[in-house]
């Protein structure tokens, strides 16, 4: 079942289209990967979903994006961003303690008692597979964590807001292979409860963890299907060339 739907959605500047008539379904409780080379429009696509495009100067859009069958433009932007979390390429913890990083979102969204907040922080860190590593140091600065831990902290921060969808924009590109493996294992675990949208240009990563892959090129969705289908037998020649590193 799809939780997000793009319908004839385009984003453009004065001179060119960044996204060109996107029609795409994001399926619930699956890892939905948007795969494509640099500059193909991947990040613009996810930023459209949580309404960051409309506050970016110089960009215009038309068409529709539906979240749970309702246009995203009918939601308050804050509500969309709570329900659809975004994890960036570079881990970006706040210069607070580990605890405060996770508690920050729930504290401003809901009025909570301290013990309720502690419960949310603990559960989010457990879900992000970080709790065991930091449980005795929750008051330490988040900046003292390793890159991989910081990225899992950012995932915990997104989870603390009880989202339905988590978007991850190249979440492992700045990490070493061990930290990358942990994040990939985590993504596979998280899809049981959440819908994952993964942005990557890494074909091997897409192959390891995706359920569905949308290949985007020059702002257009070239092909979208089950991961094994697109990886074994792409229908489009451009997809084939990208997958086999023969594009350009």
């Amino acid at each position, binding site marked *: 079942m799809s939780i997000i739907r793009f319908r004839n959605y385009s984003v453009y500047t004065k001179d060119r289209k960044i996204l060109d008539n996107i029609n795409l379904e994001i399926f619930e409780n699956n890892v939905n990967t948007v795969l494509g080379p640099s500059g193909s429009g991947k990040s613009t696509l996810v930023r459209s979903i949580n309404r960051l495009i409309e506050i970016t100067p110089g960009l215009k859009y038309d068409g529709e994006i539906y979240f749970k069958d309702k246009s995203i433009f009918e939601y308050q932007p804050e509500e969309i961003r709570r329900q659809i979390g975004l994890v960036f390429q570079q881990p970006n913890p706040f210069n607070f303690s580990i605890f405060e990083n996770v508690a920050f979102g729930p504290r401003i969204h809901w009025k909570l008692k301290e013990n309720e907040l502690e419960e949310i922080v603990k559960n989010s860190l457990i879900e992000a597979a970080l709790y065991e590593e930091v449980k005795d140091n929750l008051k330490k600065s988040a900046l003292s964590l390793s890159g991989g831990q910081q990225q899992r902290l950012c995932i915990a921060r997104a989870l603390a807001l009880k989202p339905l969808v988590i978007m991850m924009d190249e979440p492992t590109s700045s990490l070493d292979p061990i930290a990358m493996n942990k994040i990939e294992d985590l993504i596979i675990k998280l899809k049981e409860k959440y819908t994952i949208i993964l942005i990557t240009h890494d074909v091997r990563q897409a192959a390891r963890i995706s359920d569905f892959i949308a290949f985007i090129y020059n702002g257009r969705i070239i092909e979208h299907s089950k991961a094994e289908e697109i990886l*074994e037998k792409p229908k489009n020649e451009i997809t084939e060339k990208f997958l086999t590193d023969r594009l350009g």
Partner: protein
Amino acid sequence: MEKFEMEMNKISKELEVLMGNLEEIMDITLSSLVNIDIMGINKIKEMDIMIYHKTKELETRCVNLILLYSPVAKDLRRLITTMKILMDIDRIGRYSYDISLFIPRFYEKGHLGKPEIIPKMVDQTKKMVRIAIKSFIEENADIAESLQKEDDLVDDLFDKLENEIIEYVKSDINNLERGIGYMLIGKYLERMADHAVNIGDNVIYLIKGEKVIKL
């Protein structure tokens, strides 16, 4: 992926040579069998061992490519196809050797009549292997698809062989030992033809990405 492509092309070229070796071993096997040439067995054995080792070497190189490059799309299909074809080549080579082991059985008493069906089966099987090789080299799915019909001819010949052997054995029980020999040779040839069909099926998968399913 330039290195991947270079190594894959090398493997494909060596696979083509190996397929040529396969035709050769089948030729030697047929002439040694028809002429009851015991000396041919050693040559067949040598060739079978060479084919076996070469298939294992190429298989290892394919595995290395998977480990190094984790290929997808047509690169992945080419590797899978190559590895499967290597198995078929190994089996066809081995069946040639298995057939050669029956040659001594005819040494003392000669063939039962003039062998006709077996040479026809060998010719048909060789034709099929040649078609399979061509379909792979030319990446031609139409040629590969024609193999199924060719295989039906081998099956028909095998049925005829069975009836002929039954008649030979009925007429004289002393023909039993050679009769069983022919039956097994016929069965090996029929299996070789099946492997040629497998090669064709894998070529279809390589080109179209569709697995040929047979019940």
